């Protein structure tokens, strides 16, 4: 098991939530029904960042449907860029970008941030435009 994966699983354990509770919370925060998805795979076919994800976007939904904790330990939600390609293509009208955000929020609301200023060098902070830093911190910190 890779170190990143192990840490992700540890982090999931720190949430102290069952998968039933997680799925309820995801649905409540996103306003989406994860069981609407019928696994056609259109979202993953169009997702520009799918290659980088441990679980493809449709697999994330499948894992949620199956109450499989891997949904919460896979890196997918942190790689997702909220580009909304999946949302415009989903034949079932599932807003996967909102589902991903809800999953992130479950961590972020417990103060488990996924990006920090300490992790960036001064050079990078100076190099990056405000628009990138503000967006990244809005998505990955609580």
């Amino acid at each position: 098991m890779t170190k990143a994966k192990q840490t992700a699983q540890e982090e999931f354990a720190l949430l102290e939530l069952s998968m039933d509770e997680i799925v309820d919370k995801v649905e409540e925060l996103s306003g989406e029904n994860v069981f609407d998805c019928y696994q056609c795979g259109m979202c993953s076919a169009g997702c520009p960042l799918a290659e980088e994800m441990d679980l493809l976007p449709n697999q994330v939904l499948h894992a949620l449907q199956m109450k499989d904790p891997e949904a919460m330990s896979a890196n997918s939600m942190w790689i997702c860029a909220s580009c909304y390609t999946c949302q415009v293509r989903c034949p079932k009208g599932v807003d996967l970008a909102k589902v991903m955000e809800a999953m992130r929020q479950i961590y972020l609301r417990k103060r488990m941030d996924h990006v920090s200023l300490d992790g960036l060098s001064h050079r990078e902070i100076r190099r990056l435009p405000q628009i990138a830093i503000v967006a990244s911190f809005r998505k990955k910190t609580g």
Partner: protein
Amino acid sequence: MNKLEKLTYFPGCTLKDTASDFEISGMAVMEALGYVLEELERWNCCGTVFSLTDDDLMHQIGPVRDLIRAQEAGSEEIITLCSMCYATLKRSSLFVNGNQERLDKINAFMNKEIDYEGKVSVHHLLEVLRDRIGWEKVEERVTNPLEGLSVAPFYGCTLLRPQEIAIDDPDAPTVLQDLTQALWATPIDYAYSVECCGAYQVVDHRDVVIERTHRIMSAARRAGADVIVTSCPLCHFNLSDTQKELVRTIPDYEEMPIIYFTQLMALGFGVEAGKIPASLKAKVKRLQTVKGEG
């Protein structure tokens, strides 16, 4: 001189900083078309990204304040140039306008502000050009036709997605191509014009962004592009940032100029365009001399 028509303009922080060429050229071309972009007073940063969780009213406050500023100014609309500001403000306006319960909650929370009435709509400058001014008027204003210049439009995400805020067909938009044609340049077709560049992932997954933007630019080059045109300062940064990396690592790498759509217009109108990459300037000049001789 004719009086200029006013548009209530929200610049956003990036246009005041790294994307100043976008604002400079935007002001100049709109003036040439008879409009003045009047900056909203005391605007604040919209927060860049729209909050996607339904219970999170907190993060609507920033954008709603900007809508209040427009209301105070007696305007029923806000025009943006930055496509990320467009998306955030537009989505916030759709989230609260016409929803009394949300309006009441937000207004109750912002007790130092006047109540927001839910009447301000948000538009992108490209919509104004297409729907109010029209491509014919744009074309009439052209003094330096960009004939022979091949332009790759790069829409990115936030002008087109999600569906409810799309300014054009999310899968097959034409607004940037139509603008290009009005300037006498040639729009080119390539597979990546509506793809995502990786956005803010550049902060902690820069390699992913480099990989994606390299693919986008290679496809545009193969299709014969002389320049890539965008309306998003983050796309602009990501594409340019990757190019710096490519110049460093690939011998003889030839840079692809990346500019804002307002800069392309400024070249066609012969008005202040901000900084234009030297290779593009030379190319445009060459095209115009050839035409002059021919």
